[in-house]
């Protein structure tokens, strides 16, 4: 399988470059993925042939653009198994999607004394909007604990999710710990207590088959740019019943039904949420990205990434002084591996790896409460995608060892 997967690398010209005189190994996929030629071409071709504003014109280009733009809703619907394309709302990305849910659904449904339950592993984007909502409404924000290997403590979840809970918001997959959370179980817990479940799918949608109905989620959001699509486009999915009652947040342009001097009526969902000219080319690119991923198969992508981790994890654990966060069993570990190398600061490690062509991230990964919880100030993170190869794994391991060697007299 490795062989066949390696063919996809050819579609990513950016990977064929040297960085600091070394072959680039891009392992920062959790921050953003690279884009294959078919996606870049789809965007360019749209501008070369069909570009026009959507929904507004009777001329030929406008009609073509509108059709392509709306067709992608169907692709997204199929990609995550939504029940209707009308449940697919275009956003700027995961962060905007989560903020919209907090502001539109949250502000109209929460009251003093209600509780919002999230986890210690949330990305700031699935944390700060709820914090703000709690401040505004007088609701309480509570955090589900983690087990020592980084997985969610379901005992803690059962204690925290009660009849007071109005909203539960959880990452499907962690952007730091490499764990995938048991969403269906959490959905059952939430629903038993009359709460809705918001799922942050930023790190899952790119890497595994998503079925929002099977997950039992009420809201599911993700970003295009982490799954081959252009920057500036994301998806907010929610059950129709919620979208129907949620007030729109950005007013103007095509989201309107009729405007009088002192009042306005809005279109039906999803269009009522899409104020102003949308990122049309971004939508087209997202459609091409979904086509590309679907042609490979999401299950295959998930399996392949696991095989890389099965290669990597044992090698890392052999390096003395190297500490991996999250589960140590490769089977439970997604393609995100966060670690520290002795007392070396993650930034020094990341710079040393960069000098060897290996692009990783260092820092708090927009998860400061998690860092605090784990008692570290920062970590190094290597995150894989299907176009990474076992040679990439080897180059990473080699580079980490060389880094350790370089700093050996100092803090390692």
């Amino acid at each position, binding site marked *: 399988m490795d062989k066949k997967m390696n063919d996809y690398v050819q579609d990513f010209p950016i990977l064929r470059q040297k960085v*600091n*005189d*070394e072959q680039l190994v891009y392992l920062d996929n959790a921050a953003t993925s690279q884009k294959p030629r078919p996606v870049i071409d789809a965007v360019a071709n749209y501008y070369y042939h069909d570009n026009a504003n959507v929904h507004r014109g009777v001329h030929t280009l406008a009609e073509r653009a509108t059709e392509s733009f709306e067709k992608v809703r169907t692709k997204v619907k199929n990609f995550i198994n939504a029940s209707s394309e009308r449940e697919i709302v275009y956003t700027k990305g995961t962060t905007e999607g989560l903020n919209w849910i907090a502001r539109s659904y949250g502000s109209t449904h929460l009251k003093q004394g209600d509780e919002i339950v999230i986890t210690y592993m949330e990305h700031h984007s699935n944390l700060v909007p709820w914090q703000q909502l709690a401040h505004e409404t007088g609701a309480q924000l509570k955090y589900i604990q983690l087990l020592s290997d980084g997985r969610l403590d379901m005992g803690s979840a059962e204690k925290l999710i009660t009849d007071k809970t109005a909203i539960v918001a959880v990452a499907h997959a962690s952007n730091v710990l490499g764990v995938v959370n048991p969403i269906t179980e959490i959905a059952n817990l939430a629903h038993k207590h009359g709460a809705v479940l918001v799922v942050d799918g930023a790190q899952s949608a790119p890497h595994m088959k998503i079925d929002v109905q099977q997950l039992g989620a009420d809201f599911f959001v993700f970003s295009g740019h982490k799954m081959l699509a252009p920057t500036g486009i994301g998806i907010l999915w929610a059950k129709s019943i919620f979208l129907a009652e949620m007030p729109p947040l950005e007013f103007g342009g095509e989201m309107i039904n009729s405007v009088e001097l002192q009042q306005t009526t809005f279109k039906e969902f999803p269009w009522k949420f899409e104020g102003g000219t949308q990122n049309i080319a971004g939508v087209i690119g997202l459609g091409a990205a979904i086509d590309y991923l679907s042609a490979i198969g999401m299950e295959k992508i998930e399996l392949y990434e696991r095989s890389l981790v099965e290669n990597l994890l044992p090698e890392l654990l052999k390096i003395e002084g190297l500490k991996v966060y999250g589960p140590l069993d490769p089977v439970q570990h997604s393609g995100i591996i966060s670690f520290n190398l002795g007392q*070396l*600061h*993650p*930034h*020094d490690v990341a*710079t*040393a790896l*960069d*000098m*060897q062509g290996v692009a990783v991230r*260092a*820092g*708090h990964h927009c998860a*400061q409460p998690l*860092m605090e919880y784990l008692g570290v*100030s*920062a970590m190094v993170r290597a995150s894989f995608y299907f176009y990474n190869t076992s040679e990439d794994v080897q180059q990473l391991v080699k580079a980490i060892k*060389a*880094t350790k*060697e*370089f*700093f050996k*007299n*100092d*803090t390692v």
Partner: protein
Amino acid sequence: MTLSKLNNLYRQVILDHAAHPRHYGTLKDSKEQLELHNPTCGDILKLEVILKDNWIDEIAFSGSGCTISQASASIMTVEVLHKTPVQVEKMVTAFSELVTGEKTTGVQELLGDAMIFEGIAQFPARIKCATLAWKAIYQILQKAGRLE
């Protein structure tokens, strides 16, 4: 190995300061103080100074950070001690120009050991690490009303 270029960044003096930072800790007496964050990496720098007449009489820093930011803080404390606010302001400017590669000559005397960070211009992502401590001393003097 391919890490020889890293020596341009992690010079011996820098590694030494990072491993054995000077003026690390806190001051007892009444003092000016300031805490700065580098939001990108989560580094924290606490800086304290005691100003006497018109010079920096005592100085200390604490917090956590990478090799570069720790070493830079350590060297900064050594270099600004007993200098006047006006002199320090000149040093801050000179250091900033040094690490961005804007002006690298004629500042040896002014910056002393801090010249060691000249090579960092090749590592743009790390410039902020080196300048954090200098930003802190500048802001502390400004807050204390010692700069025009």
